[in-house]
């Protein structure tokens, strides 16, 4: 009996020591990990070098990034009904709205973010939180073309024959085409004028291309003007490409990129810690620096002079779109675009 007692005490002591030592040697493992979808390219590189170490340091959470475009994240999560291949989405407004329709997100509990109060008002909701702003306008080659003053210019020479167009498959493409439609009398529900104008200049247009081909086409002089966001323009410019951003006279388009916790996520607690780290002032200001050029959403971050706005409050003065109106029409627009531009 005595010996048994001793044995148990020895055993318990040993176990405690073991647990203690493992907790000491592996503090990170205890906090778990999180799998987040991320846009391939700049976002992937930036999050790998800035967010992953910050998350590890402050919360002890390991970050695994799955490079996927927004539409692909939605398609993949929809196919995997209930077994999401990642814990956190990162989305632009179009795919975000699709995800809401398909009920792919956990209800978002903003109280779990320490930095919630620093985020711009009206952008946090029950679906997710903003992590970056995007400003879309016209990108052009300053050594080949004068600065375009607005969307209408793209349909006149010398711009029309140097123009590269993409369709409605991306958020920036869709919003740009809507702005073009508006100039010529259309609206969010009527993009007909854009189609009419595109058809007019179709014979001289430089390229109608997939978004993934645009950077290469621009670099090699196949096209000299296109629509694009400030981050992409700044990134390419930082790599020596002859490119400048032009703010259209009717205003540049702004939207926020948001993060969402996937329904059925394996690591929901770590997912919130991850999003919280992304929007923390320190990480946001690092992401803002070249070569990454993000537009931050944390109000504590002082904006660089090179950004298209002096403070986040200006966000509301930019052109904004209602995606609950746009999304239901998008399938038809994409089909229509195919038919109109097909040779």
């Amino acid at each position, binding site marked *: 009996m005595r010996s048994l007692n001793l044995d148990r005490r020895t055993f318990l002591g040993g176990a405690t020591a073991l647990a203690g030592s493992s907790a000491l040697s592996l503090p990170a493992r205890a906090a778990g990990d999180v*799998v*987040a979808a991320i*846009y*391939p*390219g*700049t*976002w*992937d*590189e930036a999050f*790998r070098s800035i967010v992953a170490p910050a998350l590890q340091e402050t919360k002890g959470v390991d970050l*695994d*990034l*799955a*490079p*996927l475009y927004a539409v*692909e994240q939605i*398609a*993949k999560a929809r*196919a*995997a*009904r*209930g*077994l999401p*291949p*990642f814990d956190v989405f990162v989305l632009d407004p179009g795919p975000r709205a699709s995800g809401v329709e398909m009920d792919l997100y956990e209800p978002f509990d903003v109280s779990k973010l320490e930095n919630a109060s620093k985020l711009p008002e009206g952008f946090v909701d029950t679906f997710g939180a903003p992590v970056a702003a995007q400003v879309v306008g016209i990108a052009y080659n300053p050594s080949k073309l004068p600065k375009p003053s607005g969307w209408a210019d793209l349909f006149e020479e010398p711009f029309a024959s140097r123009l590269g167009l993409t369709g409605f498959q991306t958020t920036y493409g869709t919003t740009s085409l809507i702005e073009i439609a508006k100039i010529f009398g259309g609206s969010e529900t009527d993009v007909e004028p854009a189609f009419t104008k595109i058809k007019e200049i179709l014979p001289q247009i430089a390229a109608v291309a997939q*978004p*993934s081909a*645009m*950077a*290469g086409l621009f*670099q*090699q002089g196949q096209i000299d003007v296109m629509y694009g966001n400030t981050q*992409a323009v700044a*990134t*390419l410019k*930082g*790599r*020596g*490409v002859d490119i400048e951003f032009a703010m259209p006279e009717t205003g540049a388009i702004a939207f926020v990129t948001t993060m969402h916790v996937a329904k059925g996520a394996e690591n929901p607690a770590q997912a919130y810690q991850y999003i919280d780290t992304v929007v923390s002032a320190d990480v946001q200001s690092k992401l803002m620096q070249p*070569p990454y050029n993000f537009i931050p959403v944390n109000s504590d971050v002082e904006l660089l002079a090179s950004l298209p706005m002096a403070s986040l409050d200006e966000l509301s003065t930019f052109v904004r779109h209602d995606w609950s109106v746009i999304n239901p029409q998008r399938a038809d627009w994409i089909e229509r675009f195919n038919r109109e531009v097909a040779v």
Partner: protein
Amino acid sequence: MVDRNRLEDVAYWLVVGGLGGLALLILTTPVVVVLVTSLTSEPSLQFPPPGLSLQWYAALLDPERSGHIHEAALNSLKVAAWSAALAMIVGTMAALWLQRHPTATGRTLDTVFMSPLVLPMLSFGLAALILITLMRFRPSLMWLTAGHLVVVVPFVLRTTLANLSQLDRALLDSSRSLGAGPFYTFRRVTLPIILPGIAAGTFLAFMASIDNVPVSLFLSSARTDMLPIRMWGMMESSLDVRVAAASGVLIVGAIVLLLVMDRLVGLTRRLSS
């Protein structure tokens, strides 16, 4: 008669030489462009490069800056090696079976085996993901390999079948009548004839898997990150020159491998004779 023939022969060689030359031009020009571009001194893909440097190879091989690319490359190589090796076995077995059954059933099965090549891989990937999650599995390296296997088997099957059709039935019959067992006949008669086809098909299968985007897109996960998908992002958002350098490494590696294999084959041939 002879003169006319000679004239005809000259014309024949001119046409064949011209077309063959054009084929060489089409085959090599893009590769040369990629190699030259990868040597640029500038920070983005640009042709012609304003200056030359090996900096992008250094950046690509540096584990500090490109560790995640190495990881993706390793995953891609693993999946490609497994799916090509399995495709070699499945494809050869299927070809041998089909050769022995030139019936309507055989032709139908032949079509079935070919169809993964025809079905857009994007749809296959999507359907496979729906299926896997229906069975309550999560995508893993194993499922990814299985997915790749299905779409690369046709390469081995097709090339092996082409060589099998050269196999003279009489050879097999005489081997058998001389008392050779079926395995011995396969090893000494059939295999040497179809080996070039198997090798060509396996190589095609391996490369098709390495460069596959659509199936990987749906069946890979954050932990089974694949190389071509990563490279798309690097190319699209920042014209990252490492994308071109990766092709440079692959080309140099493959040429070295071919030369080494050539030496080894030559060596064994010399040793055995």
